[in-house]
């Protein structure tokens, strides 16, 4: 993997390039200075998964769909295969994320469901607030 990609996924810190920002307004998780790199990664993976969910819904494609693991670990780009209906349920809840077993962090989340090597976790404390703040209804 190129060094730039590796570095970015390892959470090199929030860049602040003066003069680069667009004037189109709005807010993303990446722009929030209060979020750590792990939370930003988790929110990025959730955003990508929501797009996969939209594609799967739109084309009525798969009973079982591969989503990105939403753990936010540095460099994790593993896949989680679950039925689309299961993912839809998880996504209905703003503080819930889906990830591979062993990728959970008990300091910021608790496991609410466990099935075939896949975990559904619920964020607690500040992580839950951040997740709720950037939750986009499907």
């Amino acid at each position: 993997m190129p060094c730039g990609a590796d570095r970015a996924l390892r959470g090199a810190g929030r860049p602040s390039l003066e003069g680069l920002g667009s004037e189109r307004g709005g807010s993303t998780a990446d722009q929030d200075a209060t979020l750590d790199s792990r939370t930003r990664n988790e929110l990025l993976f959730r955003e990508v998964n929501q797009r996969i969910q939209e594609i799967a819904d739109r084309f009525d494609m798969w009973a079982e769909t591969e989503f990105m693991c939403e753990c936010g670990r540095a460099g994790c780009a593993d896949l989680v295969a679950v039925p689309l209906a299961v993912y839809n349920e998880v996504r209905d809840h703003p503080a819930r994320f889906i990830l591979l077993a062993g990728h959970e962090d008990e300091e910021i989340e608790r496991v609410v469901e466990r099935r075939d090597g896949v975990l559904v976790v619920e964020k607690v404390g500040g992580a839950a607030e951040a997740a709720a703040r950037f939750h986009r209804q499907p």
Partner: protein
Amino acid sequence: MTGFGGDVLETAGDTMSEVRAEREARAHVRDQARTSRRLARALRDRAVAAREENLVHRWRLWSAGLLPSPPDIIPLDWSHPLGLEGAVARAEQACRDCAAACDAAFSARRRGLPREVIQAFARNAATATVAQRRLEFDPADSLGALALCALVVERAEPVLAGPWRHAELVLAASASRRCGVACRAALTALYAELDAPH
């Protein structure tokens, strides 16, 4: 009974086993073709790199006065550098193209495609869309999305290699590759800007 019925059964069994053997042979030939194509691609890349290196050396010889005339072409890597804004704009466009091409491929050809192929194109489309949105919104905050897009495309390479018989799939694979390259270039440009002393 060893009469007519037995013969029929024997013939059917033979046919089935022949069909099976033929299918295996076909799969083997297809795998060989795929390997050869990958090898050819790698060799072509090496040939291009060698030609470029040769060209650079010839320019050096000419600048040192050891060649009477300059080469009539210039190396590819001497093209005008895009700069940060150019790299970001190109990545944004490449991400948009990738998402659109994958979408078109789904619409036209999803039936009959293997599941892993559809999933790989869906991941490419999803990461490209997210990266494009972030680039459009604020390039400075799109590092994670660009990195993820480049990584996802890189991991999809065995799928992108095909072989594809349909134009939509060829276009989607090609747009995905271009998207990965453009995201890496934008990432490099963004980091160069971050590391530059202000």
